[in-house]
């Protein structure tokens, strides 16, 4: 394109984002200028990034070296197929979110719009740089800039204690994860001090060191992605952040962690050992199951979605685990199938989760309410948001014909081939894991129905909801864009996968393109049509045609008369909106069936209570099993250590004296 390499163009895009951000500081208080000029321009750049990502898929890798960086280690950049996949994800998802933000950010809330603009675009630019980095230092710098800018975005409304706490927790875990990643790079340099990825690729590590690198990467990137047990920041940070930021974090930022994990496990480290896959599989399953169960019992709509993100990341990790297992046994075609599922799910999740988070943003704007228990019936007031959110929840529940199903289908196909593994234990365990994946998907349906049904359907639970308004034009544009992404990814998987093929081929040397090209563009049959096939377009078309024909026939043969009346409800129609299920009520079966999984504090009304009330609070076991004990331990250690500073000078002198004596007596050369 115009003599520029794609990499240059992406670099220009990153710089342009930075410039837009800084431009926001020119008039930090001017919301119109920032929201309606800068953000749309940022969105246009996002589309550009997405297009370049598409163009770069299949093209040979491009590298560049910048003038900045450490001495002897200037920033190395590289655009290969794997980065291109995630760049296109970043570009297209952020485009929708930026357009939406143009209508979302308003005056007078916490951080000034100009600052918000800086943080937002810095966030985008650093995510892009994470994808392009080709040495450990550049990667870490971009990675932490990403964490930092998103932290400031999360704490936009920093006047509230709980938002600050959420931001703190987020940054803390991000930082610890980052140290893990850094150590992983430390392992991979092999002590040679060459931090370029190219050098790491060339490095031959012993299996022990390779395993250390993989585990560190899993922990480090897992902390960012939200793998159990490092997920605790996620359900705190997402509700605290403004909705576009939640969308960006959930939709895009979590994927950069996946990108990093893929980069390390398939590109930088050569050897793959089968148990890595099992570890990833187990962690992924635990994460997915945990995420979805907690997502079903939430009462805050953004927390619900945050837990759902944990679930989806878990599924992606399951896919990575499967890929690793196949890859370890050199079954590259199958590994490519699983990896395609992973990449596709990244794309799909970026679309639908961003969409859903943005919908909650509109709801939040219209109602000032995040608690599910105070919403309801918004489909009447916000039809645009409601219908677009419907696409989001169908994809989120992993149902045909939308995007979420494609990746789940591919993943399950991958599982079906696991009996061909030359390892009896894996043969047995892996199919059962598939059943758990299905359980997770089905529970996700439960969560999504709860989310949608309680927010948009039913009667309005609070009278104030009558004043709710639909999303504005900018917001609608963003939502429509993401809906389009979700639908297109859902109905046209084959062309997309043909593109993704370049990435799997780069990492594994195999891909699905050959088999896919044999069939039509509308058909998805990764191995062969006899083996398994899925034609979402046909599914959609059939349902649509039957719908139309039935409707026409019914009207033609009978009539289309409609009357309005009170609901029947077995004669209880006089019940008000409070008779509907609350958020807690809806998830009661889950709490009951999976009781040991939750930590609950419940209050039941007594028989003669004047004002009976029922309440339930569900808490994360990991807090009580993992984090609080650690915090307590740290606290008691520090209590002990603090005693060192007791204020008495004689004691201080004694420390010095004893140190000296010890050294004199013990430390002989």
């Amino acid at each position, binding site marked *: 394109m115009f003599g520029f390499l794609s990499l240059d163009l992406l670099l220009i895009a990153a710089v342009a984002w930075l410039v837009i951000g800084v431009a926001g500081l020119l008039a930090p208080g001017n919301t119109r200028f920032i929201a309606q000029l800068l953000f749309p321009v940022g969105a246009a750049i996002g589309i550009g990034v997405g297009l370049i990502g598409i163009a770069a898929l299949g093209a040979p890798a491009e590298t560049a070296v910048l003038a900045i960086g450490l001495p002897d280690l200037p920033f190395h950049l590289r655009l290969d197929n794997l980065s291109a996949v995630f760049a296109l994800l970043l570009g297209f998802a952020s485009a929708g979110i930026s357009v939406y933000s143009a209508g979302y950010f308003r005056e007078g809330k916490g951080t000034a719009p100009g600052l918000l603009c800086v943080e937002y675009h810095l966030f985008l630019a650093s995510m892009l740089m994470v994808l392009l980095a080709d040495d450990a230092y550049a990667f870490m710098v971009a990675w932490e800039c990403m964490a930092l800018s998103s932290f400031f975005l999360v704490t936009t409304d920093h006047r509230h204690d709980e938002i600050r706490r959420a931001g703190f927790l987020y940054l803390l875990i991000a930082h610890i994860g980052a140290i893990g990643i850094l150590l992983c790079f430390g392992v991979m340099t092999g002590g040679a001090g060459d931090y370029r990825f190219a050098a790491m690729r060339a490095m031959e590590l012993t299996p022990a060191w390779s395993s250390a690198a993989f585990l560190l990467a899993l922990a480090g990137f897992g902390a960012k992605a939200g793998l159990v047990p490092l997920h605790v920041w996620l359900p705190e940070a997402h509700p605290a952040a403004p909705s576009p930021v939640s969308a960006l974090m959930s939709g895009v930022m979590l994927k950069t962690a996946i990108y990093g994990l893929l980069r390390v496990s398939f590109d930088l480290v050569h050897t793959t050992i089968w148990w890595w896959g099992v570890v990833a599989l187990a962690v992924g399953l635990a994460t997915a199951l945990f995420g979805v169960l907690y997502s079903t019992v939430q009462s805050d709509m953004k927390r619900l979605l945050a837990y759902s993100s944990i679930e989806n990341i878990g599924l992606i990790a399951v896919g990575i685990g499967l890929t690793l297992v196949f890859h370890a046994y050199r079954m590259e075609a199958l590994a490519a199938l699983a990896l395609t599922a992973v990449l596709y799910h990244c794309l799909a999740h970026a679309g639908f989760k961003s969409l859903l988070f943005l919908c909650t943003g509109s709801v939040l704007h219209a109602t000032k309410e995040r608690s599910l228990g105070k919403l309801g019936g918004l489909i009447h007031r916000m039809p645009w948001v409601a219908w677009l959110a419907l696409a989001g929840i169908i994809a989120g529940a992993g149902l045909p014909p939308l995007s979420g199903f494609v990746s789940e*289908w591919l993943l399950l196909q991958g599982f079906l081939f696991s009996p061909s593994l030359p390892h009896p234990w894996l043969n047995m365990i892996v199919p059962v894991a*598939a059943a758990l994946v299905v359980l997770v998907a089905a529970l996700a349906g*439960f969560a999504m129905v709860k989310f949608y049904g309680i927010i948009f359907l039913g009667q309005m639970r609070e009278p104030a909801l009558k004043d709710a308004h639909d999303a504005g034009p900018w917001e609608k544009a963003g939502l429509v864009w993401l809906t389009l992404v979700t639908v297109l990814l859902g109905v046209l998987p084959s062309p997309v996968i043909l593109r993704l093929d370049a990435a799997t081929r780069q990492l594994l040397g195999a891909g699905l393109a050959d088999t896919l090209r044999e069939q039509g563009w509308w058909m998805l049959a990764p191995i062969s049509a006899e083996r398994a096939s899925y034609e979402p377009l046909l599914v959609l078309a059939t349902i649509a045609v039957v719908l139309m024909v039935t409707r026409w026939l019914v009207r033609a043969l009978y009539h289309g008369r409609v009357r309005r009346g009170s609901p029947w409800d077995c004669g209880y129609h006089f019940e008000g909106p409070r008779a509907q299920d609350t958020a807690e009520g809806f998830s009661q*079966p889950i709490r009951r069936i999976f009781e040991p999984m939750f930590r609950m504090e419940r209050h039941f009304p007594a028989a003669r209570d004047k004002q009976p009330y029922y309440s339930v609070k569900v808490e994360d076991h990991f807090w009580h099993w993992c984090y609080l004990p650690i915090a307590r331990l740290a606290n008691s250690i520090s209590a002990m250590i603090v005693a060192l500073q007791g204020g008495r000078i004689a004691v201080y002198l004694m420390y010095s004296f004893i140190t000296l004596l010890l050294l004199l007596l013990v430390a002989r050369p």
Partner: protein
Amino acid sequence: MISVSGLIGQVFAIALALLLAPLLAGWVGQCRAWLQSRSAPPLLLPYYMLHKLFNKDVVLAHGASSLFRAAPFIIFGCMVLACAIVPTLSTDLPFAPAADALALVGVFGLARIFIALAGMDVGTSFGTLGGRREMLVGFLAEPALLMVFFTLAMIAQSTSLPTIVETLAHRELVIYPSLAFAGVAFTFVSLAENARVPVDNPATHLELTMIHEAMILEYSGRHLALIEWAASLKLYAYSCLGLALFFPWGIAPGDDFLALVAAIPLLVLKLAIGGFLLAGIETVNAKMRIFRAPEFLGTAFMLAVLGLLVRLLLEARV
């Protein structure tokens, strides 16, 4: 690629499904009445019902949204699609590549979500109750169903339903113990999915126990007709699926027109027997509490997994 006979067979299968489905529902009702020593309703009662409902005005609750009105059509569409995919008469189905066994589960799931959402739409206590219970049954049944399909898919090395059926129908007579487990599990799941006793009772509006009926309480007129029709289609699809998977004999292998014709009476016969057995099951069992349902479906899941393991352990080299 798509043969004309295949297309004819496909259209014929769909038409047959639309026609036979209410009949099957009627037949099961009749059998139930016989078994319970009641006087039986007419066999064609479901057709009268549908006709009557289509004729009636729709009474929409005040709070009903457009989603409420669209849902019956979507659900009906899903069920028609499901019936088109399941090999009933022949395995030469042009629609079959659209969705394999996994996607079929997805299509059922889609219908479930819409009916649950529709149940919640008016905002009544029973509607939301039904919606939540329906989703409960759904997430319990789906993994079990998938495990059944997994077992079969491993036997046939395919998830495509026609391929599975063809493989099973034309194999040598080998006893697959795994199939027995899978068959029982499938029966359990079918009962739950189709709102039959012991999980649900289609014939009652007893408020504390109903699931399916609770969701559709607010429907009337043509909407209710479509939902009832869709429900019978679902029963039909499940029955045919069960028959095709576990008793696949007689399903026409391809463009054999004679075999296709011959398959029809065989199918009707099998459905009649199946319907009778279903009625039998419903008669000897009592409706269980809603929180026994997880145990019931958990058993189904265990059986399916056992089937899978048996398949891996005993039959891997068969």
